[in-house]
């Protein structure tokens, strides 16, 4: 297991190296002078000189890359052109909001997706299976931001059921020790703040969770349908085990293996989808920050955020792979 973990972690090194190289060159293919790209159109000559000195744009290319990596290693991910704040600080500040809606979306997708997928997989060809499959296909083909708009229109503006903006009722004054509003509500003992924060997560969670839901449903369905025909399930039936035991220990434990990997892959989709969802629901998270940065061509923010998100995505997938090793003994040993 340890060797598997180490080897899997070692694979991260070339990925990180390649990622920094890509992002390094990305700034250089931007139209115009790289220093100007990093400083914006109203850059002063002094500012340009300063950036040139820091990133060494007048030096040979390998040295430039070295300086870039050195800055990264020192925690310097550049500064926003428009907001004049370090990209790292901005990312850390905005992350809790994005994690909250991502978790909400993932919970929705998993808690609904696995039972639906299981049912469909056990009843392939039945009318409910057909309905579930059609629904999941529709789920992946509705654009996230369009779905977000629809949800906002129906549930909030027409039915007045749920909040449509932000993370918290504007009239509420609360402390935010962690930045996770749901957690803050619980920690400060302010229960109404907690329920309010949860209510604000419902619609964004639904909008963001629909694609992962559809994908989890389909993978679970296919996996269950395949496992059901495995010889070991027949063995379990021949042992006269109770239906519940056969389902849990022999079908689901095997059927969930590919689902776990899928859930890891969904996290990338969530971060990307958050850009769209947060914008529609005016949630002050990583996604909206990125959206605003795109609008004003704030390249340092783009460069830094893409690096962060790719890093997090790689780390999460590493964790998923490692946990896969825990649940599948075949991986653990080989």
């Amino acid at each position, binding site marked *: 297991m340890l060797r598997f973990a180490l080897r899997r972690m070692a694979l991260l090194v070339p*990925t990180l190296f390649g990622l920094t190289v890509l992002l390094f060159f990305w700034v250089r293919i931007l139209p115009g002078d790289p220093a100007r790209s990093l400083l914006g159109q109203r850059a002063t000559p002094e500012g340009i000189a300063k950036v040139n000195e820091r990133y060494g744009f007048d030096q040979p290319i390998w040295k430039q890359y070295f300086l870039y990596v050195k800055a990264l290693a020192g925690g310097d991910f550049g500064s926003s052109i428009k907001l004049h704040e370090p990209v790292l600080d901005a990312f850390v500040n905005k992350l809790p909001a994005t994690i909250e809606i991502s978790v909400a979306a993932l919970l929705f997708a998993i808690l609904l997706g696995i039972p639906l997928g299981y049912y469909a997989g056990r*009843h392939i060809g039945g009318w409910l299976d057909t309905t579930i499959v059609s629904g999941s*296909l529709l789920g992946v*083909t509705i654009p996230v931001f*369009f779905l977000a708009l629809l949800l906002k229109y129906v549930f909030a503006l027409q039915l007045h059921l749920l909040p449509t903006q932000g993370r918290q009722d504007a009239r509420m004054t609360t402390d935010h020790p962690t930045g996770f509003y749901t957690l803050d509500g619980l920690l400060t003992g302010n229960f109404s703040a907690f329920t309010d924060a949860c209510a604000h997560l419902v619609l964004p969670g639904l909008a963001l969770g629909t694609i992962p839901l559809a994908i989890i449903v389909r993978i679970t369905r296919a996996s269950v349908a395949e496992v*059901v025909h495995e010889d070991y*399930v027949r063995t379990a039936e021949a042992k006269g085990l109770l239906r519940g035991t056969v389902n849990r220990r022999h079908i689901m434990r095997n059927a969930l293996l590919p689902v776990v990997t899928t859930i890891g892959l969904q996290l990338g989709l969530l*971060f990307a989808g958050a850009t769209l969802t947060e914008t529609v629901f005016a949630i002050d998270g990583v996604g909206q920050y990125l959206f605003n940065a795109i609008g004003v061509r704030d390249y340092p923010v*783009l460069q830094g955020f893409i690096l962060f998100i*790719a890093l997090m995505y790689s780390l999460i997938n590493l964790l998923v792979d490692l946990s896969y090793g825990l649940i599948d003994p075949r991986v653990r040993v080989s």
Partner: protein
Amino acid sequence: MTTPPDVLVSPASSGDADSSESTSGESLWRGAFKRLRRSPMAIIGAAIMVVFVAVALLAPVLAPYEPASTQWTNLSTPVFVQGSNSEHLLGIDRWGSDMLTQLLFGARQSLIIGVVSTLIGLIAGAGLGTLAGGFGGWVDSLVMRFVDILLSIPSLLLAISIAAAMGKSSFALMVAIGAAQVPIFARLLRSSMLGQNRSDYVVAAESLGLRRRTIILGHVLPNSLGPTIVQATLNLATAIIEVAALSFLGLGNDDPAVAEWGRMIVSGQDRFLVAPWLAFYPGVCIAITALGFTLLGESMREALDPKQRR
């Protein structure tokens, strides 16, 4: 749970029908086509696709107005948005353009960007995958590490970073969306290449002294065709959705003369309360078109899957 223990052994696997299975390539395709024609999913998908392509090609004929003819010059209250009426079947947008016309021309834009970007992804990805799977060794490692790096960036973010670097144009959109598809095709081609490298017909071709390139181009690639076509069909759906997403993020083509569904949603978004149809129609168009390609792609995948053959 009242479900019976499901199929434990299928009759086909218990030995009654293990000898009449034909495996020749031609009958695989013919069989797949036969299964496709029986599948309602495939028929609906194909119908949507045909309508979509026809609309895209015939947009100038079908559209009641000129695409870019914003009528605000002869309209007294340009900001007033009309719903459907006898003159404008689906109403007009805030600039006075006919919605139906815009939707029809939007199909054209989606088709062009979708097809070109998928082609870009397919050619680049298939090239890389063939290289990796065909040559193996260090070429394979190098290519796959590169693909891993691309995969470590979520595809929409990859597209965003490319589109942001290239500026607002349809071409930028195509390259951005196409690039995001490269890893998918690269992996697909590589794995089907590796799967077939050891298969009997390749060994047979090698023993006949055929050159490696000839084997790959003449034997291995044609056999990877099925999964590639399936993937391309599914990617067309993704591409159409991503065009809209990038437009929504302000990275699309902002030439007002070019109608584009994603941008129509964005501009309709402001008036969602008073005129929800402005965003609703293009959104539905995107969803239905993407659904059509997805249905077709999924049913092709099922039809070509040997496990599904009954």
